[in-house]
């Protein structure tokens, strides 16, 4: 008896790259449309437009009343912080909902490049976070006296993009953790509140106790917001480049941790046959 041996299909590196790019691009877009529960006007507008609007006014009023600082200080902090809603909550849903919607086993059964699959999810949420933050910044400029130096607008843009990326990265980590939890949004809410308290959004880092400053340094957002505040006052890339780089490194560290956890949970789920267990 002989068995025919089929030649193994050989894929050129270029084909592999093209496939990975398609998974990255189309997979990311599809995950946004299908897994992000808020991607419809009836939820998006109240949650990602209305909520941030009132958050901005609330903290501007509270902060300026309690501290006598300009409302603009609080407006900038909160305008950047509202991107967390899109980044952290969005990314948590984009990963954790695979399990709840029953698509996780199908995704993991495919030979798709995991790095492309995972990284593709970032893009729509980074873009979404940027949109929400830019909207809030415009609101701050129109109503709360926020002023950005035109000479450093590009620096503000780069710092904002980096900050939103690092927030999305911690959202990815929370999403990976949520694959094992009953309610993933609990952690997302905690992260959002943690950033509000520890990262200098409303209270300058120097006025917090030492241990809170330490926690703030480990969280994403802190260095990025410092860079944005300084750039808004006219600082150039030479002055805030270090802060932006630090923020980027923190974001990359969270993204790598998220991917590693995702891989670990995938292996563990395969080994223990718990892929579809809720």
């Amino acid at each position, binding site marked *: 008896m002989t068995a025919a041996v089929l030649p193994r299909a050989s894929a050129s590196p270029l084909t592999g790259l093209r496939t990975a790019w398609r998974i990255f691009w189309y997979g990311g877009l599809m995950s946004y449309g299908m897994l992000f529960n808020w991607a419809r006007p009836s*939820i998006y507008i109240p949650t990602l437009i209305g909520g941030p609007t009132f958050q901005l006014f609330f903290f501007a009023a509270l902060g300026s009343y*309690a501290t006598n600082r300009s409302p603009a200080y609080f407006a900038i902090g909160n305008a950047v912080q509202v991107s967390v809603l899109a980044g952290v909550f969005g990314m948590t849903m984009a990963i954790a909902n695979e399990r709840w919607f029953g698509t996780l086993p199908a995704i993991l059964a495919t030979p798709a490049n995991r790095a492309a699959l995972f990284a593709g999810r970032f893009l729509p949420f980074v873009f979404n976070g940027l949109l929400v933050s830019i909207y809030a910044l415009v609101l701050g400029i129109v109503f709360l006296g926020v002023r950005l130096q035109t000479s450093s607008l590009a620096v503000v843009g780069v710092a904002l993009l980096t900050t939103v990326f690092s927030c999305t990265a911690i959202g990815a980590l929370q999403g990976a953790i949520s694959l094992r939890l*009953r309610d993933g949004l609990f952690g997302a809410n905690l992260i959002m509140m943690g950033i509000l308290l520890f990262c200098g959004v409303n*209270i300058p880092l120097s006025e917090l106790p030492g241990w809170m400053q330490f926690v703030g340094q480990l969280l994403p957002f802190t260095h990025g917001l410092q860079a944005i505040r300084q750039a808004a006052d006219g600082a150039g890339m030479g002055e805030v480049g270090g802060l932006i780089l630090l923020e980027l490194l923190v974001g990359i560290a969270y993204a790598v941790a998220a991917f590693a956890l995702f891989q670990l949970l995938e292996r563990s789920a395969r080994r223990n046959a718990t892929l579809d267990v809720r």
Partner: protein
Amino acid sequence: MEAARAARQIWAITWFNVRMLLASEFFVLITFIAPLIFATLGFFLFRSGGGTAGQTLLYVALGAGMMGVWSTTLFGCGGAIAWQRWEGTLELLVCAPTRYDLILVGQTFGAVVFGFYGIVATLAWGVVLFGMPIEATFPLVLPLSLLAAIVSLGALGMLIATSFVLYRHANALGNLLEYPIWLVTGMLVPLATLPFWVRPISWVLAPTWGMEAIRGATIGAAPPLLAIAMCFVLAVVYYVAARYMLVFVLDKARRDATLSLQ
């Protein structure tokens, strides 16, 4: 006899709902954890402005606690009917011989009472971490203030439950209405510092008077009798409006055969 049965029913549903909310991570978060974070933020903000002398800490703790009460009322009541639909119990409850509005009263009071646990947690947090003094200028009026606040917020919760059900995504409305009510009801920012056109809005909102009743009894210069009276007046108005709304909503749902539809 009828009244006693209704009271017993409301009581049973209230505590049943409190126990249910205690099992929900989301409600534990918004009732116990979020107020502590907002209280801490408030303490640091006022300390940054040099204003933690006297009763400022108590002012902040009560305000942050009341913010938690509002969140619990908003999400607990806003989604009440929607959750019954989701769980498949709405048809059974509406068809039961027991009056449905009493069931809803119990449910909304459950959410509000649960929310008030958050105030206790926030006060304890302030005492332990920030050395906040606990004192009340009118200790005998305080229980009445708390009762007035619970009753008015419960009635408002019922109105929210019956009106939010018309919107498909009640939780999204909750996300929208958390901050503005915190702001316009003077929970942490005095109303006097807000634009004049905000005041009439705050007058028709129960949390404004509930907050004033509780603050008046603890750190006020005079007993908050007006605030307590306004709480009860608004509670009656909300209840009547909620009854009408409930009749309309249930009628519409029966007519369109959408009682159990999401």
